[in-house]
């Protein structure tokens, strides 16, 4: 029993407030006098949710512990003969522990700020009530996911955030590209989701049969084992091929949600949604849910060594994979989106290395600076009406706040001290480095991570220079840009502040309780300092290169006949992976379906119709025997007589003898 249990039992309010918002805005938003009123309702309610969330976080910070309030029996499933012999109940409820409290803060703070920002950003949009309803529903789902008490509840909300993401990506549903991107996002994550579900089965089966998890099985997918401390007793209690596969399935689920290679294609396309949505869902919260899943699983269930290697591989490779594509992209949102993928890779990498808290730490800081970057980008887009970097330039003068905000975000992203990103990213690198001895394959992925630091700084500052530097003459048609209204500026300022200081939370004693063991992973020995120095150096290197190539000075550019140009094309084409997927979906699967349809119509149903036709033809032939000539009928009679004689005298006795009875 913790000191703040009374507070924690109100945790359900956090999702409840947005739910109220969803109902009000969803059903009555269209009927309000002005569309913004609905928006304000949602903003206020999300503010309330944020307030409760922060209170809970404070409670956890002051008195860390696990509080569960699971009381609603959602499903009472019978047992089966083989594995689930006793049956089990799926009891839904809330689980408040330090990490969920941390996530509550992330989700609700960013959520509130984005909602506020949207009032101004979206105010001219006709679908504003719909927007706020969907956004509120997303907050319900995301908070529900964070507060989930068991794996299945987690999955339930996991799917719900997915569908909210689907709706929001397709918010501008009349745009074919938006509709297509929404579908793609849903489908790709769906692949991860079904594998995730399989993983749940596997865990369940394993722990339900092996001795260590009997209690876990009986309690039905629960994260906690009674009220024992949240670092559950199950970690590492069993190790088997099944568990390895289960872990891999978790990784697959996380990869889908967090856009890790090879399920990363949907996230850049998801930028078809409003920028605010990108900031909230596709940067700060939902995409981080995959990482959160890995964190939770590694804390409660544990990964096997093979799993961890796979996670490291996926995370490590994704960092450089996504960063490389960001190098050449000219869409401001997509650049930031690739960076999101890349940063998520870092988090996954950390979890794979065994430092779940470090991953979570990076998630925490990333949420703020990435939301900041997106909102800043949104501010730019709002001002200039295009997303094409090549058409921007010189916005520095007209949009000071945005300019600075973007800069803060970029610095943080690049891992330049003292910005938030530096602390967490440095932790990631250090923690991976500390594990390189575990398996020789850790090395290449560590190198990827380091190389990515350089690339990150390069591409984000390239974007910054392109957008804000220069004289604004790149596209004469750009309207004269204005700074955004206060409802947009305020979130930018708040987030800038957070992006500046969030990294230090891990070092504040009480706050550190929310991220136990994250702030100071290894001792800051010489090696770690070397690592930090390298990383910071790489970051500055990237910044410098960006300045040289895209800054005001423009020291050099890549010549058109450079041997690197083909690589550029490959990168712009996103390594042709999306093409391959499209081919697979549109040609292979759809073609298969067409072929199957052909078989269905002409072979299977054709057989049915063939039988029908055969009957008809037989019937027709038989009717032609009915000639109307009585002699023919007599002939049938006599033929029948002869046949009957033959049958009765010889065939029937033979049959009776050989079959042995009538």
């Amino acid at each position, binding site marked *: 029993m913790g000191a703040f249990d009374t507070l924690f039992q109100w945790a359900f309010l956090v999702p409840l407030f947005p739910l109220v918002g969803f109902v009000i805005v969803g059903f009555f938003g269209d009927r309000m006098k002005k569309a913004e009123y609905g928006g304000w309702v949602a903003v206020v309610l999300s503010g309330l949710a944020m307030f409760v969330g922060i209170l809970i976080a404070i409670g956890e910070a002051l008195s860390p512990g696990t509080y569960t309030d699971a009381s609603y029996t959602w499903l009472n499933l019978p047992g089966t003969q083989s594995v689930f012999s006793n049956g089990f109940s799926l009891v839904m409820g809330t689980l408040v522990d330090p990490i969920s409290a941390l996530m509550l803060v992330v989700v609700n703070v960013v959520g509130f700020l984005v909602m506020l920002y949207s009032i101004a950003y979206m105010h001219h949009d006709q679908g504003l009530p719909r927007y706020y309803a969907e956004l509120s529903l997303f907050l319900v789902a995301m908070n529900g996911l964070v507060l989930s008490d068991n794996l299945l509840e987690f999955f339930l909300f996991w799917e719900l955030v997915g569908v909210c993401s689907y709706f929001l990506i397709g918010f501008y549903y009349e745009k074919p590209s938006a509709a297509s991107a929404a579908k793609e996002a849903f489908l790709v994550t769906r692949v991860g989701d079904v594998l995730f579900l399989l993983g749940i089965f596997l865990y369940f089966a394993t722990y339900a049969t092996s001795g260590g998890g009997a209690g876990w099985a009986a309690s039905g997918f629960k994260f906690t084992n009674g009220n024992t401390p949240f670092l559950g007793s199950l970690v590492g209690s069993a190790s088997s091929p099944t568990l390895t596969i289960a872990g891999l399935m978790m990784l697959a689920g996380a990869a889908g949600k967090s856009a890790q290679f090879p399920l990363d294609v949907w996230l850049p396309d998801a930028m078809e949604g409003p920028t605010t949505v990108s900031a909230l869902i596709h940067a700060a919260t939902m995409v981080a849910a995959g990482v959160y899943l890995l964190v939770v699983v590694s804390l409660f269930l544990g990964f096997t060594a093979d799993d961890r290697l796979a996670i490291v591989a996926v995370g490590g490779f994704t960092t450089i994979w996504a960063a490389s594509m960001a190098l050449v992209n000219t869409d401001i949102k997509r650049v930031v989106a690739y960076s999101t993928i890349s940063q998520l890779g870092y988090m996954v990498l950390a979890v794979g290395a065994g430092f779940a808290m470090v991953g979570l730490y990076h998630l925490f800081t990333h949420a703020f600076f990435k939301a900041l970057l997106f909102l800043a980008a949104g501010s730019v887009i709002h001002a200039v009406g295009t997303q094409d970097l090549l058409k921007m330039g010189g916005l520095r003068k007209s949009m000071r706040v945005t300019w600075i905000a973007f800069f803060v975000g970029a610095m943080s992203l690049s891992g330049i001290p003292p910005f938030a990103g530096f602390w967490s990213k440095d932790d990631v690198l250090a923690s991976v480095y500390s594990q390189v001895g575990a398996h020789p394959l850790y090395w290449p992925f560590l190198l990827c991570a380091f190389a990515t630091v350089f690339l990150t700084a390069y591409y984000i500052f390239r974007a910054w220079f392109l957008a804000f530097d220069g004289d604004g003459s790149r596209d004469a048609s750009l309207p004269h840009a204005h700074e955004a209204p206060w409802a947009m500026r305020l979130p930018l300022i708040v987030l800038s502040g957070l992006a500046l200081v969030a990294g230090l939370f891990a070092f504040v004693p009480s706050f550190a309780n929310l991220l136990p063991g994250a702030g100071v992973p290894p001792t800051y020995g010489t090696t770690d300092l070397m690592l930090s120095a390298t990383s910071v150096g790489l970051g500055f290197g990237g910044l410098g290169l960006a300045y040289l190539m895209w800054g005001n000075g423009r020291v050099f550019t890549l010549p058109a006949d450079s041997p690197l140009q083909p690589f550029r094309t490959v990168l712009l084409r996103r390594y042709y992976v999306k093409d391959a997927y499209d081919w697979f979906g549109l040609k292979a699967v759809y073609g298969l379906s067409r072929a199957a349809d052909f078989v269905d119509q002409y072979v299977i149903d054709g057989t049915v119709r063939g039988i029908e036709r055969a009957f008809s033809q037989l019937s027709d032939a038989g009717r032609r025997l009915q000639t*109307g000539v*009585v002699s023919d009928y007599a002939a*049938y*009679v006599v033929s*029948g007589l002869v046949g009957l004689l033959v*049958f*009765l005298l010889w065939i029937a006795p033979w*049959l009776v003898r050989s079959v042995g*009875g009538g």
Partner: protein
Amino acid sequence: MDAVSWTWFLPEAFLLGAALVVFLLDAVGVRKIEAVGAVSVGAVLLALLAVISDLGFDPLGFLSTLPASVIDSGGGSTSLYAFSSLGLVFQGIFLLSALLVALASLSRPSDEAGASVFYGLLLMATLGMMLVAIAADLIFLLIAIEVTGIATYLMVGYTRKDARGLEAAMKFYIIGALSTALSFFGASLLFGAYGSTNFLVLSQGLGGVTESTLALVGYAFLIVGLAFKVTLVPFHAWAVDVYDGAPTDVSAFLAGGTKKMGVFAFFLVFIGPLSILTARAVSCSGSVCVAPYDFRPSVQLTLGVLAILTMTVGNLLALLQKEMKRMLAYSSVSQAGYMMIGIAIGTAPALAGATLQVFAHVFMKAGAFLVVAGVSALGVGPLIAQYRGLGQKRPYLGVAFALLLLSLAGIPLTLGFVSKFVLFSAAVQASTVPGQSFFFWLAVAGLLNSAVSVFYYARVLKVMYMEPPDPAVPLDGPAGDPTAGLGFGRTAAIILAVVAIVGLGIYPQPVLSAIQSAATHFVATGA
């Protein structure tokens, strides 16, 4: 029961008397259909009452307490007739079919020529059927069949001026005479094999040449002769043309009545207590007993094959039939196949099933033909396609026809379903005996056939209900009278048929238990 008293012949006497009266009236010039029709209907009703009272009429337990021992071979082993309870049931069935047709024919034009001949022949034909039901001698049986046969040949052609009717009569006659020749040839061979034509003697295998092959050949000929009446494939071809060409009321009688006579003849020859197939004694000399050559499995197999052939071909040919009467004729052929299942199996339940099927078929098929007669009296052509919109324009007639067709198709809550259900249940039950698994396939074949048959019945429903009425066809009666143009007699007959179909379809127990006890008795009692 005690020895047969003359009262047992009361039904036959009523019929014969009425027939003589009708012929006499004709001779003195009274030819109005109302007069002769009334006499005939009255006689049939009286005969029916007599049969029911023979069956043990009991107002409280109507038909459900049938005495099990209504059998008497009537004066020793050489008697030509014997009363069995199943025979009485069949007499009732025959009389019901005659009643339906006689009632419906009242609605024909009252000055129609030949009404008296028609009714007289109808009574004579019914008389022949009644006699078949009490036959205990092969020759008696065959001549009784011939009584009906000759009357029906003439009934088919009684319109004289109608080329179709005469053609039908010609075909009916030729094939009928051929099968008469064949059945008598078979009877003569059986006589040669056993020295008598009495069922009792035959069953004991006394005297004569006692050649099993001779007897088997005799059976083959006999099967052909009887199969003609039951319209088994391939002895069925005449039936379609005759049902088509004959006046529709006569078709109703042929399909609903005389065919059943053949079924009972099969019962008598192949299943009954006096059948050779059941009662051949094991001959023992000293301690060594030799089972005689047993025909039973071979004959059962043969009949089973005929049953399957009949059902299948009948259904198959009905599938694409464009004319209503011919479709019904083919369906009648296939229904005969179902009845043959019961005969091939020959257990008491199967016999009950077949009898119930016969019973149901009287109402279904005669009823359907009577509806067709009524519809064509309204001026609708012979094609199925010309029944468009009947269900909408003539709701009562449409529903009646639909119910009769659904019953023919074996859809639940109709008598047609109950009869098939009992029959096929019996087949399955019989097949549980080791070595009799063949019967299971009879049931399967029967059920599959009934499933196929749904196609062409449903097609008629489709035409009647789902296609718009043809404005050229004068289906509309005078306003407010949906039965206009049918007449009292036909309406009564159709109502009788439909009520029987539905009422007994929902609660078949009284009839079923009566038939079952009769059938059990028929199979179990050795004379």
